[in-house]
């Protein structure tokens, strides 16, 4: 049982690190990895719930500019696996997952710092010879080398840490789990603040408060707010354009 789970966790973490290979389609995010870990641990519903909660805790963790984000996938997989094994909830997964993500961030930064550059230089040498096949081959190796170098750490941590972590979780004083439960509601604020920092400027700042209080006073849910936001955005952009350029814009986006 433990061995099968370890192997499956290894495969899952390997795939999560291939996000770049699959078009950066966000397969390594917590909301995807949580449910799949749940599947391995035999409790999909908990996996979905934990994945959703962790996704919010990690919402700011995307690599934009120079910011090196924590490794969401390792924290989610181990956090979810340990939480399900101990019969605990999302707050335990966050408490377990965050430190794991931080440690793996460092390990990954080292592996990704060294290995792809190495193979990129080999591709350089093939380009100099006009050998397109050699370039292609090194494109693949450059991406897989760092994954192969580090992925085994996560299943190993699961295999060797499993019992210890579950025992530890059983002996945690109640105020700490309550504290983590409170933290689960507060930590997403960091992610949203990072996000707002990215798109906020004086021209659009009021819309943040519009979204916030629409929910507080009317409780209509995020999807409903998103629909209204799209309508408002279209109206405002049309009002603010002096020239009738909108025709062209519509043309461009009907095409695909």
């Amino acid at each position, binding site marked *: 049982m433990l061995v099968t789970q370890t192997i499956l966790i290894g495969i899952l973490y390997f795939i999560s690190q291939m996000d770049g290979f699959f078009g950066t389609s966000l397969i390594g995010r917590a909301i995807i990895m949580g449910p799949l870990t749940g599947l391995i641990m035999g409790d999909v519903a908990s996996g979905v719930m934990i994945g959703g909660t962790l996704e919010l805790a990690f919402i700011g963790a995307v690599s934009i500019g120079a910011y090196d984000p924590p490794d969401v996938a390792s924290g989610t997989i181990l956090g979810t696996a340990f939480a399900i094994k101990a019969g605990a909830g999302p707050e335990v997964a966050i408490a377990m997952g965050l430190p794991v993500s931080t440690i793996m961030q460092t390990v990954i930064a080292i592996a990704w710092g060294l290995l792809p550059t190495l193979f990129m230089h080999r591709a350089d040498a093939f380009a100099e010879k006009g050998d397109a096949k050699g370039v292609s081959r090194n494109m693949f190796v450059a991406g897989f080398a760092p994954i192969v170098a580090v992925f085994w750490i996560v299943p190993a941590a699961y295999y060797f840490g499993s019992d210890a972590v579950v025992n530890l979780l059983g002996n945690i004083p109640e105020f700490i789990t309550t504290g983590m439960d409170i933290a689960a509601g507060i930590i997403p604020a960091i992610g949203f603040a990072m996000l707002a920092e990215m798109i906020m400027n004086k021209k659009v700042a009021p819309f943040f408060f519009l979204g916030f209080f629409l929910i507080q006073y009317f409780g209509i849910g995020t999807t409903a707010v998103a629909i209204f936001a799209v309508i408002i955005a279209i109206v405002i952009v049309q009002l603010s354009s002096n020239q009738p350029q909108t025709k*062209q814009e519509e043309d461009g986006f009907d095409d695909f």
Partner: protein
Amino acid sequence: MTSKTELNKNSLHERQVINKKILRKVFLHSIPMEHSWNYERMMNLGYCYAMIPALKAIYGDDKEQMKEALQRHMEFYNTTPYVITLPLGISVAMEEKRAEDPEHFDTSSISTVKTAIMGPLAGIGDSFFWGTLRILATGVGTSLAVKGNVLGPILFWLIYNVPHFGLRYWLTFLGYNMGANFLTKVQESGIMDKLTYGASIVGLTVAGAMTSEMVYMQVAGKIGTGDDATKIQAILDGIAPGILPLILFGIVYYLLKKKWKPLPLMFLLMLLCIAAAYFKVLVAVE
């Protein structure tokens, strides 16, 4: 702008070697763009790899030309991966044009154009994909997932990736057909500014909504005694619902502006929450 998805056969290219099939291959090769991402030249190897189907069609067995072209596209490149096919399409059109008349074509313009488009494209692409579309997908996905609904992760992936792959595919053809003239055309029309403005309105409104829905805290304690006691939380809700999370958001936003790192901030908040639970200042919701 009537026939953008059709290949422009007359004006730009006399000796056409690029066809739909090859452009589709360029699109497919663009998918692992960030697979070989490296700190030195970032997307360069991915870019070169994606150009290969087109370069093979254009230069064929001409080793000398192939060598120069491969080296040309091993230069530094970095932008939002989802829109990479726009510069790729432009590069393909320019390489094809160059092959018609290598003597008189300014080869350095291939690099100049792709570098010029890199910055503006990253600005628009990052804010649209990371700031708007991902937030929409996360908003819809997590609101279902936290209730244990499997549709959550599925919708999250689809909402993000259906527009992503659609746009990535379409931009290959748009880039190719517009060739090097693309940049000037777009800047003159002002379309991009409007799109960015509209996208940031949607992104920020949804970010506000999600902050409202997902960030929560509740204070313990009462004022007065016995049956007359009023909960402090009830008083705060009377002032404005959600005022505590909003203040918290403001503080965190301010600290990030002051160059605090997100991770230490996260651990600090966790410690404060544990302390708050110990001294019973805050209570867990539900």
